[in-house]
């Protein structure tokens, strides 16, 4: 419609993917809301994994963070964050926790009930 998107004149596509060494395909698909946790032990190893991976580990060590939060706090486009996070899972630096179950009536119902009671307590 009317409003046009602000255009980034710096060539946003090329620059971010430099940190993934040009790779745009992650090793596995990670939902935007899936949360990631770094253990203390992994923190030590992450020091040697590169600047961005270390920052991700630091962010995910004190509390679980979603892929979306990692992208937002570290100012990385989602696609870039997903490639880095997938690498870190493969290297044992991050553990991936499940997003909402998509199958099974009982599991889905149970989750909905928990979310509902969580909302009512707000």
């Amino acid at each position: 419609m009317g409003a046009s998107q602000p255009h980034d004149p710096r060539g946003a596509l090329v620059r971010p993917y430099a940190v993934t060494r040009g790779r745009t395909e992650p090793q596995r698909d990670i939902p935007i809301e899936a949360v990631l946790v770094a253990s203390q032990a992994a923190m030590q190893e992450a020091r040697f994994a590169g600047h961005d991976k270390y920052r991700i580990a630091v962010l995910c060590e004190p509390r679980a963070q979603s892929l979306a939060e990692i992208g937002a706090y570290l100012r990385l486009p989602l696609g870039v964050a997903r490639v880095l996070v997938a690498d870190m899972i493969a290297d044992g630096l991050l553990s991936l926790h499940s997003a909402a179950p998509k199958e099974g009536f009982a599991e889905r119902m149970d989750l909905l009930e928990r979310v509902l009671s969580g909302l009512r307590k707000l």
Partner: protein
Amino acid sequence: MDFASSERAGAQPKEITSAKIVVAGGFGVGKTTLVGAVSEIEPLTTEAVMTSAGQGVDDASKVPGKETTTVAMDFGRITMADDLILYLFGTPGQTRFWFMWDELIRGAVGAAVLVDTRRITDAFAPLDYFENRHLPYLVALNCFDGAPRYEPAEVREALAIPAHVPLIMCDARHRDSVKTVLVGVVEHAMATLVNEHGRGSPATVG
């Protein structure tokens, strides 16, 4: 690969489940305000960089000289328990970014389509989108100060909202009002799930 990390950690870490609710609607309808009213963090913005060639969605002829597009999404977080987090994602305002909406709704609990009664026609595209998707959604009328007030029945008729889709009034600035919207989304999702379950297989009570 998980063995190595759990050996190191010693204790079995608790599995955390995250769920999401999508807040859809036209540009400037109050999606981020709604998210901010209940989120425990200031709404964050995450960006996805898209290429027009790769997605085949952006019509390059309409944006001459532009090969990449940055799509921004605002979102918030509610930590409900040490093993349960709810995320609220606002859709990109421009409805031409359908491919991003597809990613957002995948695995979502449900959605709320926020409607501004001053610009009711902006709601057609988001409503069309959800009508053709398999995701429970409701319509929330955001009542801005001084906005023309319509009876819910009038809005339902004007927007051709199907009878099975709940329609509620709200004020996106107020926490309690937003809570009511989100509770409505989850209750509707539960009702939809029960309904499908009942139809899909012989009733198993208990």
